[in-house]
């Protein structure tokens, strides 16, 4: 049930309270998703979706930090001076 695939909001269609919704693009597959739990989310934001509802907005700065950490350990591995 936990589909951990981030999707990008491409439109906001209904702005009414609990039925706030928009279209979300999951790498080419577009679905109508309820956005009531992410009132701060706007077009082009990435959201994590569960059972038809966006439950979190992906923090792109935090993602970049994690990716930089991954890149660092990868560089260490490739240059052969990893900790091991």
């Amino acid at each position, binding site marked *: *049930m936990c589909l951990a695939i981030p999707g990008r909001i491409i439109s906001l269609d209904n702005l009414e309270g609990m039925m706030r919704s928009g279209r979300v693009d999951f790498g080419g597959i577009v679905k109508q998703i309820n956005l009531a739990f*992410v009132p701060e989310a706007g077009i082009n934001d990435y959201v994590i979706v*569960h*059972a038809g509802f966006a439950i979190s907005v992906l923090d*792109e700065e935090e993602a970049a*930090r994690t990716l930089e950490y*991954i890149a660092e*350990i990868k560089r260490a*591995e490739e240059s052969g001076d990893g*900790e091991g």
Partner: protein
Amino acid sequence: MKYLDEFRDPIAARAMLEKISVAASREWTIMEVCGGQTHSILKNGLDRLLPRRINILHGPGCPVCVTPIEMIDRAIEIAQRPGVILCSFGDMLRVPGSRRDLLSVKAEGGQVRTVYSPLDALEMARKNRDLEIVFFAIGFETTAPVNAAAVYQAATEHLDNFSILSAQVLVPPAIEVILNSEDCRVNGFLAAGHVCAITGYSDYEELVENYHTPFVITGFEPLDILQGIYMTVVMLEEGRPAVNNQYRRVVRRDGNPEAKRLMGKVFERVDRKWRGLGNIPGSGLGLRAEYAAFDAARKFGLEQYEKEEAGECISGLILQGLKKPFDCPAFSERCTPEHPLGATMVSSEGACAAYYHYSLTEFQRIKKNRNE
């Protein structure tokens, strides 16, 4: 795909495995508490790539698996009533109740439908005002706000032909049962990323304080899980347990306030029975008195229904991390995804199903060695 493929990089995964190997000076047992993570671990072969001193156990993180047999019997009972449509997530249809499953009720003409979201069930209620629409609401804290939204909306629209059969459960009380068990072998936990996206992680800080066991909130991709394991091992080696958040791109300390607010408005904590773990006080979510009209168990007079678990299936021991699927004498022989004995083989998030799909060859090799 953006924010997905980057977390599947094989060279970085090898580097992370090396870091874990260097960091781990002795054997450690780590439990992941999410069926999605169980499948990622098996699918990507992480269990086999990790150093042997890192033992991975699979916890009670599959909502279909932990739903007790009596709750399935209640759903079956409701589905057999005339004028009712019972809606559920797909996997629930195949989990055996005490005598049969929902799929066989459907085959005999019962109105049983698979839905992707409780909102689909709500839409069915709008379109079929002469029928009772019941949503079999399973799930953890990730799903509960979604179910709350459906109930809240039904109340707003006065859809009195909609109700939910609540089998919702909360993760921290189950972790506490595992930690309190005399047989507990778990040194650290990977906490479920999406549960924490809703709840945040103050409950886990309390668990660390009480049990001196580290938790790392972890995502679902191979690098997320490996980094989560590395962070857990570092804390274990240093003897400084805490809650660390590997999944910062999705999880914030306070979780999702909107979702929590609605969940608290519609539901309250109740005692709940879990498959394999028994009754756990305060571990479930039931409807608050204001929303009692949307409680299917009450509406259909099934509040007192109870049933003991029985049979050959060892799901309960697997969900507690006391056994692994390969330890089960029925695994892959009398129990397969096509003919499952129990929930952990049925559910697409179940540990037995993960081992069956991704490690069957490994099992056959082990079995051959056992017999030689």
